[in-house]
């Protein structure tokens, strides 16, 4: 790692960018232009965000608040835990623990800095990671391994049985940083009693672990508060997803990122609820005007992403969709599978509900919720079984009336790369053209945007989509 990189902490640098940015957001256009002159690169990042209006601004404020909490945590006597993106941080907030969710942090680093997270990605390898391991953790984790972040108190992960390379990253970090570590173990099955009970016991065990580490008992009212907030958020998400079904889809492509980052940094927190509310309002306006969420206002095609939905270091991918009149029908990783959403009709017994009547129902709810987070649920078992990857991608494509499906992941993702070919062939049989991107969603040294774009153009043209 270059010495100058070691000068400042990863999370601190992000905070220092977001703090002024979130205030600039409220400034006048004139002030904005002035500010841009000093941060020409950042203009490319901030502009598209602010173009989204209130949701864009609230998004900025939300992540800024997140980093503020992170940096004041220890001063406030709170513990900090590293977690992963298919783990709901709601339980952390119920216990007053501040979560460091690696994947969104890596994604943010990629978006905010010109050189992305290269130095941190490579540092992880210098410390013993293989280059073939998943880049989504390596980015931010590299920084914490290098001691370039807030001091971590313990680690939580829920990917054993879901994704080796993810779980390994946490096991490695725990051994390397010598910190306590709890891992939820997920069997391949979902929804049957045997499995649910196994989850529940495991989850309760984890709560005990968190109580020991944080020195706080799980407070009932606090838990209820968080779950009520989750309940509100689920309602709003469900509204958004209902609107997403409209033709044209009134949601701008970037809403997927707002939703994704929001859920994995701030589930159960009012900041996220506020953001969702503003998204619903904005999308509602578009909907009632019969306007597409795309800047052109015209929707030519509807694209569903069966895995990750962003390309490495910038908004390129979303911009490209926007420019070509392609509506973003969400990615599988942004789905929640709450029992009230529109796509769960065909997904019997694999949803969760929130019941705050007593402690048991509450813990049951939150455990169920965690077991139904997108990757945990869809990508852990045989790809072609009910409620697994193929099944759910098809349901989504149908419900959201997608015209085509794109796979984008990282070469580090054995679990999806190992089955994406049969998956694609099966999807094609149902009449959806599928494009497999070779890019790395977190590291554009794998495939340049130029090469990626060329293949996208080709796909949409030749498959008669544009």
């Amino acid at each position, binding site marked *: 790692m270059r010495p100058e990189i070691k000068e400042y902490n990863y999370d601190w640098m992000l905070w220092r960018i977001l703090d002024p940015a979130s205030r600039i957001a409220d400034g006048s256009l004139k002030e904005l232009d002035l500010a841009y002159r000093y941060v020409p690169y950042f203009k490319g990042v901030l502009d598209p965000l602010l173009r989204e209006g209130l949701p864009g601004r609230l998004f900025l404020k939300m992540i800024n608040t997140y980093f503020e909490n992170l940096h004041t945590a220890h001063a406030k006597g709170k513990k900090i835990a590293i977690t992963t993106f298919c783990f709901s941080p709601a339980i952390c907030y119920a216990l007053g623990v501040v979560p460091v969710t690696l994947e969104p942090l890596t994604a943010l680093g990629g978006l905010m800095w010109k050189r992305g997270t290269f130095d941190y990605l490579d540092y992880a390898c210098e410390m013993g990671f293989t280059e073939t391991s998943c880049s989504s953790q390596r980015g931010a984790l590299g920084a914490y391994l290098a001691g370039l972040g807030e001091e971590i108190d313990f680690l939580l992960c829920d990917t054993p049985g879901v994704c080796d390379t993810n779980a390994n990253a946490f096991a490695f970090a725990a051994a390397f940083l010598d910190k306590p570590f709890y891992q939820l173990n997920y069997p391949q099955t979902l929804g049957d009693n045997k499995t649910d009970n196994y989850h529940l016991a495991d989850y309760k065990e984890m709560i005990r672990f968190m109580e020991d580490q944080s020195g706080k008992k799980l407070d009932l009212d606090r838990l209820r508060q968080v779950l009520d907030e989750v309940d509100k958020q689920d309602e709003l998400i469900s509204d958004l997803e209902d609107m997403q079904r409209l033709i044209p889809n009134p949601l701008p492509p970037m809403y997927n990122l707002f939703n994704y980052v929001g859920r994995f940094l701030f589930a159960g927190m009012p900041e996220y609820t506020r953001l969702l509310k503003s998204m619903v309002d904005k999308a509602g306006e578009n909907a009632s005007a019969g306007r597409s969420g795309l800047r052109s206002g015209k929707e030519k095609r509807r694209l569903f992403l069966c895995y990750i939905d962003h390309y490495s270091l910038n908004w390129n991918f979303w911009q490209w969709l926007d420019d070509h009149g392609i509506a973003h029908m969400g990615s599988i990783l942004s789905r929640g599978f709450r029992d009230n959403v529109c796509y769960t009709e065909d997904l019997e017994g694999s949803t969760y509900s929130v019941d705050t009547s007593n402690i048991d129902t509450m813990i049951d709810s939150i455990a169920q919720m965690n077991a139904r987070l997108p990757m945990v649920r869809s990508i852990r078992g045989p790809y072609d079984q009910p409620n697994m990857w193929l099944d759910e991608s098809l349901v989504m494509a149908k419900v959201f009336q997608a015209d085509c499906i794109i796979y984008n992941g990282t070469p580090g993702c054995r679990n999806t790369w190992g089955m994406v*070919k049969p998956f694609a*062939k099966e999807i*094609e049989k149902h009449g959806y053209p599928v494009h497999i991107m*070779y890019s790395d969603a977190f590291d554009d040294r794998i*495939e340049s945007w130029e090469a990626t774009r060329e293949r996208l*153009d*080709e796909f949409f*043209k*030749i498959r008669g989509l544009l």
Partner: protein
Amino acid sequence: MIVAGCDVGSLTAKAVIMEEENIISQAVVLAKTRPSESAGDVMEKALKKAGLSRGDIRFAVGTGYGKDQVSFVQRVESEISCHAKGAWWNRPAVRTVIDIGGQDAKAIQLDDKGKVVRYIYNDKCASGTGRFLEVMAEAMEVDLEKMGDIGKQAKERITISNQCVIFAETEVVSLINEGKDVSAIINALHRAMAGRVVSLARSIGVETDVVMTGGVAKNSGVFDALADCLNLPVNHLDGIDPQINGAVGAALFAREYA
């Protein structure tokens, strides 16, 4: 009406000039660093042969890796579309086109209207591309054109396990050190290459007629290995250099747009 197609690949650039149904001129040059140069050169060459000037060309279409850099074309088309179009024009019965270019290998499935149904590229890897053979030829100090025939003289059947160009090279060198016969090694390379492309094609389904295009189609070793491995007859295009198929396709597009 006179139209032109220009295919700027990673190793070579090709140009084709057509008048109505006929190819009246064609040219192939080695790619320069800058695709714009390569395109200019190859086009000039083709024009000269036909005794024409730029002004005589009603419409020109570009394709290939460097298509965006070709100054004199009015439109660009993807390699896939061009190879499909070229092959179908030459041989309407074709349903599967297997093209091995310098940088990648592709399989294209057509319907009876010549429309592309599905297509697939090789995963990011140079094994099974023209570049692969080029590097190997260098490593063995044999000349690329002769590889096909040399491979046929193989007496022994060996396998090359390493698929990375760079390390296949090491392996080839060590095989030579072990005293293995160059023809046997080349033969193994041809079979390995054909094997990869065939499984690629099979994954989207192979229907007859099968046509092989691209520079590597001139390598009889790979060509035969391909038919052998597919266990189906594989055809050359009738009466044209397989290398210029993409350019022909581009010219055909030009005719439509003109």
